[in-house]
């Protein structure tokens, strides 16, 4: 049981009104409970200090309490902490303001599942002990028998080094540390019972759900309307949350559709196989109106991508923006893949892209839909970097002679990397009514450019171009 004190500590730590604590205490003080049985209600019994499980307050308190652990781990000065940034930012050649984003991750949590992520095993052990201490303090214990260690981009550590620490649950604040041996997995992460970014494994899991499904045995054959309801409420209701977390490929989704159709056909005992399209076609189009796993899969992928890009939690939104920025500038020639059709020269779906994003993009492309970014203020603000414009130009006009890369390096060497360092666009309200042209700084030549020590040069003034020769002593 999660101690209510955890919730109260959160209220204090986050600076929320202490009256919330008083309200919660009064709501849980001497609460009479009746149990409904087949023969009516039982006599009341009194419960103190317990939040009803299944109530709306229970997940809120749980989330707030575990968020305290997240913030605690984040505040630790941990050398192995994971920071996510774009490839361009990592290489020191940012393209757009999105490249300035970075996401610091110490703990990922959803419902009652959580993952501690670190770069080094020692840092992971430190974080794991802190997290275990936090959990034990507020009434949770780690189930080490079910735990695993995921290790990627490195050989599996030996059994001696992979021991994980835990605290003494009877006294979490003591210095005593117990060590636990846990299995090591290097294939993929399973989170919320979902193999992350493993659509094929997800397909196998969903296939088993359909294979194991059987229609209820009744004395009379089930009519089509009831079959439709059973499929929707039992099979699709099970598949839907799994597909929302990890969509599968279109081909695999079609396979699941066929499996479902085969089951329905076998139950009805028709002498001929009906067309699969007819089964999932809506009633008003003379179909049978059964749910389509393919359409569900595609729509969940698209809605998931849209939700990520506009998520109300900054960390989720930031992660989506980083992924899109990497896809745009690192793999797609700086062309927004969700807005434009990708260049035929470029890989359409890079292998590092989340599979759900590939599916969502292919669905958008099939339906000729686009996700249009509505905040492009950085363009008019001049916060676009030259290398981004150069790459974009090269992608859009591949046959056109491109700017020598050397020029960009020389600009960068002299501190000219961003468009606003050269000039500015007119204010937006002017741009709306007239031709939007770029205005170079009037003092661009004289202020920012370091002339060579000696040699010929051209300069430009209001009267025209001038040729000269610099000789400096």
């Amino acid at each position: 049981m999660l101690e209510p004190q955890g919730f109260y500590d959160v209220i204090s730590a986050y600076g929320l009104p202490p009256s919330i604590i008083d309200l919660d205490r009064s709501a849980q003080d001497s609460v009479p409970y009746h149990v409904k049985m087949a023969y009516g209600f039982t006599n009341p019994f009194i419960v103190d200090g317990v939040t009803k499980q299944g109530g709306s307050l229970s997940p809120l308190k749980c989330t707030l309490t575990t968020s305290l652990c997240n913030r605690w781990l984040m505040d630790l000065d941990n050398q192995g902490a994971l920071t996510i940034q774009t490839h361009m930012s990592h290489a020191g050649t940012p393209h757009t303001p999105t490249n300035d984003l970075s996401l610091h991750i110490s703990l990922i949590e959803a419902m009652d599942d959580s993952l501690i992520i670190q770069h080094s095993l020692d840092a992971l052990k430190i974080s794991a002990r802190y997290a275990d201490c936090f959990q034990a303090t507020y009434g949770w214990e780690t189930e080490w028998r079910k735990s695993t260690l995921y290790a990627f981009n490195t050989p599996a550590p030996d059994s001696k080094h992979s021991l994980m620490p835990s605290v003494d649950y009877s006294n979490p604040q003591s210095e005593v540390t117990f060590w636990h041996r846990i299995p090591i997995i290097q294939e993929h992460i399973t989170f919320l019972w979902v193999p992350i970014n493993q659509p094929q494994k997800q397909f196998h899991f969903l296939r088993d759900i359909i294979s194991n499904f059987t229609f209820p045995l009744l004395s009379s054959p089930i009519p089509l309307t009831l079959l439709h309801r059973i499929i929707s409420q039992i099979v699709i209701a099970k598949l839907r949350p799994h597909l929302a977390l990890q969509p599968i490929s279109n081909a695999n989704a079609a396979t699941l559709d066929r499996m479902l159709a085969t089951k329905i056909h076998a139950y009805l005992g028709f002498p001929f196989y009906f067309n699969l399209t007819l089964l999932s076609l809506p009633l008003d189009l003379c179909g049978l109106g059964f749910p389509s796993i393919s359409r569900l899969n595609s729509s969940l992928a698209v809605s998931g991508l849209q939700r990520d890009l506009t998520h109300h939690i900054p960390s989720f939104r930031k992660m989506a923006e980083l992924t899109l920025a990497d896809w745009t500038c690192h793999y797609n020639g700086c062309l927004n893949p969700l807005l434009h059709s990708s260049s035929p020269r470029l890989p359409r779906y890079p292998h590092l892209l989340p599979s759900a994003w590939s599916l969502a993009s292919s669905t958008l492309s099939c339906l000729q839909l686009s996700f249009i970014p509505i905040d492009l203020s950085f363009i008019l603000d001049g916060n676009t970097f030259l290398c981004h414009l150069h790459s974009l130009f090269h992608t859009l006009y591949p046959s056109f002679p491109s700017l020598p890369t050397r020029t960009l390096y020389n600009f960068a060497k002299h501190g000219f990397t961003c468009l606003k360092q050269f000039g500015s666009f007119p204010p937006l309200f002017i741009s709306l009514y007239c031709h939007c042209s770029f205005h170079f700084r009037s003092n661009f030549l004289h202020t920012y450019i370091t002339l060579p020590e000696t040699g010929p040069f051209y300069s430009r003034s209001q009267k025209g171009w001038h040729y000269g020769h610099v000789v400096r002593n």
Partner: protein
Amino acid sequence: MFDVDFDLVRPMAPSKKSKKAQKQPPAHRTFRIIGPRPVEEEEESSESDFDPPSPWALINNVEPQAEEDQDSGEGNTSDKEHEEEISGEEEGEEEEDEEEDEDEQIQVPMKRKQVPKNANKSSFNHTPPLFVLPLTTFHRENSEDRSRR
């Protein structure tokens, strides 16, 4: 303030394909980017219609050594690598051709450091190790434990 119409921007360095077109520059060209300019090039330009270069030409004229410095820098390697990753081998070769063309045009033998294609690739592409530990928890029900705490 100088108004520059970006539709009219034309880079100086031609590719092999557009070499013929480059010989007769369009009349509407207002913005050019040129590389280090040798004496012969200046004479040619003085004979023909003077096409005003951009201020960027100054940057290109500054310190030819800078290119070598940049070549050995991390940014250059990563950018080159980026282009290689995007466009593959052919694109990389094409880019080299373009640079060679440019060198031919300006007739300045540029001593470029022979940087192997995969230089620093391993360091750039090196993915650091990642360790993940799921916290599988269960709720302690024993009231004795709570009272002990």
